[in-house]
């Protein structure tokens, strides 16, 4: 099997990840629920992972690293902390439903700063025009559908200048691209644990830089006599039992990433993406969403064909044991921006574990799928 759907979930993990999950499940209990050995082992595991993440993302205090179920959970906390009904919120033209749906539910006044695909300058300009008067801005670092790397440093700078709190969705960049929480000065950065960070499903991380509002209320193992949630992090945002096994696995994923030279994973994924694009761009009737300079594209490539629908291409590749995703990828906003809303695209997303021989095989299989018509 060739797995090229890492923008949804990375399937191949370092071998230490499942081992750590299993070890945690059989030896650890819950942090903050006693001082016995299994509870304290769990507490140590969770704190160690917090400290590691704080170091990796340059967060000043480990308490500001919050464990969530996934990026969507973190984005919901962030958006609910900052946005009220009718507030003007600026978002990029590449946001996922995990941003647009919570904003819709809050009945926020959403202004989309649309810009052409792979055009970073135009993206900065769109934000510059849209930001004045905004209560908050939300921006993805990398488009999950097209791999477009948005100019997040410049957007963060604009937000800081205008004192507009910024929420960054790092779902497609965490573990792959550098993310310096302190330098960016964002209010929140949300990310999943199960994609680029190579952890298990059901894990996510929210980096908090300011005031936050709990989304879930309940037991924290602290201030139990009080009827209100604690006013300190991480307890304020972590009601209920932690996914300790997931956190243990996540820590091993992050450890693996930190053991690699800086930028190595990104360079590998990008090389795979470019190699794949070069092999398939001559296929008749195929449209590639590809930045030829590769300056603003990560290891995600979307394509569409004039001859076969995206769903059918993905299905036929699936029959050849090549796993890709077709459709709108939960981001109608991005497809509206790019003009692919009717058909969607077929998305190929690469991981540190994919090889060039897998790319060769996928390219030749894709040619066969499209030539059989």
């Amino acid at each position, binding site marked *: 099997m060739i797995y090229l759907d890492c923008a949804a979930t990375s399937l191949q993990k370092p071998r230490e990840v499942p081992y750590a999950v299993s070890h945690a499940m059989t030896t650890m209990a819950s942090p903050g629920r006693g001082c016995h050995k299994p509870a304290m082992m769990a507490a140590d595991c969770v704190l160690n992972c917090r400290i590691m993440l704080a170091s990796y993302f340059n967060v000043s205090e480990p308490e500001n690293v919050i464990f969530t179920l996934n990026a969507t959970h973190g984005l919901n906390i962030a958006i609910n902390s900052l946005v009220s009904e009718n507030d003007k919120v600026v978002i990029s033209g590449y946001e996922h439903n995990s941003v647009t749906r919570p904003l819709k539910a809050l009945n926020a006044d959403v202004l989309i700063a649309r810009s052409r695909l792979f055009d970073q300058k135009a993206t900065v300009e769109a934000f510059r025009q849209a930001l004045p008067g905004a209560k908050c801005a939300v921006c993805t670092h990398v488009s999950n559908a097209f791999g477009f790397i948005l100019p997040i440093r410049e957007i963060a700078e604009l937000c800081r200048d205008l004192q507009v709190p910024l929420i960054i969705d790092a779902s497609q960049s965490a573990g792959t691209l550098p993310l310096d929480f302190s330098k960016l000065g964002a209010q929140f950065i949300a990310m999943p644990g199960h994609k680029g960070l190579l952890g298990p499903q059901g894990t996510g991380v929210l980096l908090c830089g300011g005031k936050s509002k709990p989304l879930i209320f309940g037991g924290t193992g602290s201030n139990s006599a009080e009827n209100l949630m*604690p006013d300190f992090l991480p307890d304020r945002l972590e009601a209920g039992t932690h996914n300790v096994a997931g956190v243990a696995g996540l820590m091993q994923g992050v450890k693996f990433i930190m053991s690699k030279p800086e930028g190595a994973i990104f360079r590998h994924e990008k090389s795979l993406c470019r190699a794949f694009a070069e092999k398939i761009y001559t296929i008749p009737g195929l449209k590639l969403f590809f930045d030829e300079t590769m300056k603003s594209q990560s290891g995600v490539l979307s394509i569409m064909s004039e001859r076969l629908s995206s769903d059918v291409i993905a299905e036929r590749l699936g029959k050849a044991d090549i796993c890709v995703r077709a459709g709108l990828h939960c981001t109608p906003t991005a497809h509206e921006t790019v003009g692919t809303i009717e058909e969607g695209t077929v998305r190929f997303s690469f991981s540190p574990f994919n090889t060039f021989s897998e790319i060769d095989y996928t390219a030749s299989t894709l040619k066969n799928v499209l030539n059989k018509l």
Partner: protein
Amino acid sequence: MLHYLLMCRSLTYAQRASRALERIGITAIITKAPKSATGQGCSYCVKVSEKNLTRSIATLNTAGLGPTRIFLVLDDGSVQEVS
């Protein structure tokens, strides 16, 4: 030997406080704080011996992990706040 409980804001703080003290050779055991000491239900603290009290407080204050309150553990296991 007398012991003191250094109250922490949360378990995470207690863990960090314990690690900061262990790093300089002070034994600091994380324990659940007695309810009589907190009045807030579940809380955590680190337990240190009398000889290490002053150095512990100084170290924790420097690390931004200063205790919220300090209690002396009496012979019968009850606690008494110290100023």
